[in-house]
């Protein structure tokens, strides 16, 4: 505490500035994070200068590459291509997954008939179907979309069926008692009370979809961020490629933040289950 008081008292003098900066870096959350980030970047920079080949990405050169990449229309085309495919794929997976998930969760027969396949496909590493999907859909963006849907669908189904199963029995009984129609029981009671699960499922699905998109682009050379990264890394322009990775990282954080925000804002009673893959 005394350091803080001194720093405030002596602000303006050179020693005071240093003390204030030290206090900021060591004793505030933002400062500690900044310091750690600085140390990581410094180690990366010095390490690559000392031990790595000259083409390996370095922080200073990435900063230099940043404006160059940002004004490159190809970069934005790649970003848009990947992002739009992920969004369309997620929407398809959301609609189909919700319908199948409701069936699997509410109808014991459907649960037994489909549960085996849902769990099997969910446990299957999505990249395994990539060669198959490129044979079926060709080396173009349809194969990527199929990969994204495949990657996202089963985590939606599993979460929605969990949600549909956990609907309190009383809700449905009250609905029946008031002679609610089947579609009201399915869509107004079951679907609504499974909504937080659906969002949690989409949150997991988004991460998988992003991985699926990148893998499909690398595997089948489809225009997109994965291909952008691959092309630049192959052309010994790793610094440019890292800017592509940063965009993917931003997408990951954005999806995560968005889904958490939606859950907290509209479904504060829902406890975040322990996430899946």
């Amino acid at each position, binding site marked *: 505490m005394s350091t803080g008081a001194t720093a405030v008292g002596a602000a303006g003098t050179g020693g005071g500035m240093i003390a204030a900066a030290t206090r900021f870096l060591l004793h505030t959350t933002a400062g*500690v994070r900044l310091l750690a980030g600085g140390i*990581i970047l410094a180690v990366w920079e010095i390490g690559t200068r000392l031990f790595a080949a000259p083409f390996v990405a370095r922080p200073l050169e990435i900063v230099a590459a940043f404006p160059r990449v940002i004004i490159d229309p190809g970069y934005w085309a790649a970003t848009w291509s990947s992002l739009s495919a992920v969004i369309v794929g997620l929407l398809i997976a959301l609609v189909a997954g919700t319908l199948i998930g409701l069936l699997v969760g509410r109808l014991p027969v459907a649960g037994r008939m489909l549960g*085996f396949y849902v*769990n099997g496909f969910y446990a299957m590493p999505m990249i395994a179907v990539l060669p*198959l999907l490129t044979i079926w859909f060709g080396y173009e963006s349809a194969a990527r979309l199929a990969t994204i849907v495949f990657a996202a669908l089963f985590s939606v189904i599993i979460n929605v069926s969990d949600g549909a199963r956990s609907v309190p029995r009383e809700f449905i009984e009250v609905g029946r008692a008031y002679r609610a129609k089947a579609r009201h029981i399915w869509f107004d009671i079951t679907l609504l009370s499974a909504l937080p699960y659906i969002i949690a499922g989409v949150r997991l699905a988004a991460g998988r979809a992003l991985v699926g998109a990148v893998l499909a682009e690398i595997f089948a050379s489809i225009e997109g961020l994965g291909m952008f990264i691959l092309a630049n890394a192959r052309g010994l322009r790793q610094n440019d*490629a890292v800017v592509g990775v940063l965009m993917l990282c931003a997408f990951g954080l954005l999806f995560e933040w968005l889904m958490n925000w939606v859950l907290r804002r509209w479904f504060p009673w829902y406890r975040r289950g322990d*996430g899946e893959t």
Partner: protein
Amino acid sequence: MFRSGARLLGVAQVLSSLVLGLTIWEIAGWQFNSAHMVPFFGSDTPWVAAIADRIADAWYGVAGIFGAARPEAQAHPGTLPRLIEFVQEGEFFVAVGESLTLFGTGFAISLAIGLPLGILMARLRRLRIALEGYILGLYVTPMAAMIPFILAIFGYLFWPKTIVVVLFTVFPVLYNTLEGARSLKPEMVEVARSFRSSEIRLWFDVLLPYTLPFALTGIRQAVGRGLVGMVAAEIFLSNTGLGGWLVESSRSFDMAGVLGAILMITVLGTVTMQFVQRLESRFAAWRGTER
């Protein structure tokens, strides 16, 4: 009596869904050119080939009246015979061995890094604050994007592939271990401290057992991601193991090989996931009633 009847019905439903699925696969496989889709049993299995022949006879017996000629019989190599062949040649065990070695090595390294570092970060508050944001960033970044860098910098042999598996697996383990260890009540540490427990005893008797169920959640995620990383490394770096078999079959349009490899990778995924899920529910009781 009723219970066992319901149970029998359930088993029958699961079995019939399996039979139904195989039948659909078989029928779909016979419809297409063998470069696009192949059946499960295929024309290498005599009794299935005989049934297919009967059906074609009947079909073209009727269609022949209207002038449709029966096309020449095509080969529909089956997935199961291809798998059996693969096992008999011994390649199967080599491939599974290579894949498991890669996965096991990468996973072990991830555990060796993620578990201690996660607990350490929960113990040292400042270290956690410093690194938490960056770890979350790496946790949500699709690590598939790192594959081109690894290929360019480290090459394509065993250790670079291991790095891919580590990159895919280490962050779920680290993140969940950290989150779990953080939720430890300070009272537990205080009690251990007041009984003069040393830091090492504290780790082994309090922190590790407390964190284990949380870490297992991360480990389950890591298994799923690690299998993707394993196959990705085998496809994009040097072609070994099941992933290598998959990509080599797809290059030579050996559809039976592709489906066989996918089937085996799925079996591997299901078995490991089941194993970790069992482990997780076994230790879930350690979480207590909190959370």
